């Protein structure tokens, strides 16, 4: 292949500015982490709530949870990004719409974190529901028989067990958040993929750029994996789930 390799490119200065390409990638990594962690926090909070709602004895409440899940998991993530960014502001009153489009601070970041958070919350909700469903029926009945109210039963008996059971699939979701955050480049968040495209265009060293970005994404996802494994080990209740590893 007729390719001009240059591994020193990361230390070189960008064409218009004092910073180096490495600075660009570090900025990108920062935004990737910010979008991913904000989205994950949102996804966990909403996901656990919606997952619990879906197992509620009241049918309308359970339906509400189902509607949320189906809305957000049946539309491609990229389309959702565009919907929040280009379509939703058009339905606001004109003054608000213009504010959202031009004045709102960190508008790309906020849109991306919200969108990715909602999308992931639907997936988290399904896993939480599966976890609750895997508990023996007697757990809920016993809690109620002891005189706990239904919310108390969820808070002290059902969710603590269900969440422990679903840590392995939640680990995959947490890793997915980092990888899915790359789609945020499409609405102009200056995250890793965005910076990679800029760097490739500016330096014409595409192969080195994408190899470096691949490594950074891998490190993010793998760190998430190890972190969740640590939580899994720390929260394990002896005898509740069989040891598999």
């Amino acid at each position, binding site marked *: *292949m*007729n*390719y*001009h390799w*240059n591994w020193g490119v990361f230390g070189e200065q*960008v*064409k*218009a*500015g004092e910073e180096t390409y490495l600075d660009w990638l570090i900025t990108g990594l920062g935004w990737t982490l910010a979008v991913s962690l904000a989205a994950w926090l949102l996804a966990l909070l909403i996901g656990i709530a919606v997952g619990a709602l879906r197992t509620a004895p009241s049918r309308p409440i359970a339906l509400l949870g189902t509607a949320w899940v189906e809305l957000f998991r049946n539309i491609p993530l990229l389309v959702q990004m565009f919907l929040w960014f*280009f379509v939703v*502001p*058009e339905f606001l009153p004109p003054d608000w719409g*213009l504010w959202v*489009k*031009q004045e709102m601070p960190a508008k*790309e970041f906020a849109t991306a974190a919200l969108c990715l958070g909602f999308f992931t919350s639907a997936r988290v909700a399904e896993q939480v529901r599966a976890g609750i469903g895997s508990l023996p029926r007697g757990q809920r009945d016993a809690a109620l028989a002891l005189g706990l109210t239904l919310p108390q039963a969820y808070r002290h008996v059902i969710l603590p067990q269900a969440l422990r059971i679903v840590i392995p699939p939640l680990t995959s979701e947490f890793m997915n958040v980092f990888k899915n955050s790359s789609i945020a*480049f*499409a*609405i*102009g968040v*200056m995250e890793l993929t*965005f910076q990679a*495209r*800029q760097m*490739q*265009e*500016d*330096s*014409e060293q*595409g*192969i080195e750029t994408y190899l470096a970005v691949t490594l950074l994404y891998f490190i993010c996802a793998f760190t998430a994996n190890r972190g969740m494994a640590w939580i899994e080990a720390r929260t394990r209740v002896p005898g509740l789930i069989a040891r598999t590893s």
Partner: protein
Amino acid sequence: MHRRLSTTLFLVLLAVPAFAQDSGTLKKIRDSGGITLGIRESSYPLSYLDEKQQPIGYHIDICNRIVDAVKAKLKLPALKVTHQAVTSQNRIPLVSNGTVDLECGSTTNNEARQKQVAFAPTTFVTNVRMAVKKASGIQSLGQLGGKPVATTTGTTSVQLMRAHEKGKGIDFKEVYGKDHADSFLMLETDRAVAFVMDDNLLAGLIATSKAPNNYAIVGEVLSIEPIAIMLRRGDPEFKKLVDDTVKGLMKKGEIDKLYARWFMSPIPPRQVNLNFPKSELLKFLIESPSDAPAESY
């Protein structure tokens, strides 16, 4: 396990240069009986697809002349011509790895790219300017302070805007579309008050928009960029054939006819006329052809 993995990796790495070894584009064309042209899908009017999804445009016409010259030189009248769509992101890797023999798109010839590829003599010159809504009353970059300005990720315009920002002490909020259509949508929906890009692309986007009369291309020129057909680097034989063909078109005045056909008359798909006269620099470069990079202007 580890040893086997590293052995496999080693063998793979050994094999890569072996099958990608270069030995001249003309030899490659003669051996395979075909030539692959890289084309763009929406770089009006240089290289784009018509209603039948066939590549057309100013650079496609010029490339077809080069293909004719290759046929004559190799005495291969039945040479098979394949079209491969390329993007801003993959065009340079595809040319350097041999997938595409000749890229007929809208590529700026600059120093960084000359490290990877070679360019034919400049056949078009674009000025980086901005498109605005006429109603906004914006005439100059100086009026953009504190306002959102759109451009497309992965293009040179981003750096130009930053450089200009630093130089003039203007602080505008950059917003990024993932392609030109997205960036134009930002201007259309008021997410941005201006869109900074090559003026021929802006003219094309405006001409094909819903309300062409609402937009104008205004303001100072941020950069002058020579646009050229791209080929592999380090292949003097093929480069000479391409250069001679393009210079021939320029000497015989044929390039002026091609220019008039694509820039000064109605073109498909909507039969709009871009009305885009030749710049002084392009006139000069047709008089005395050159493949010098953007940095030299």
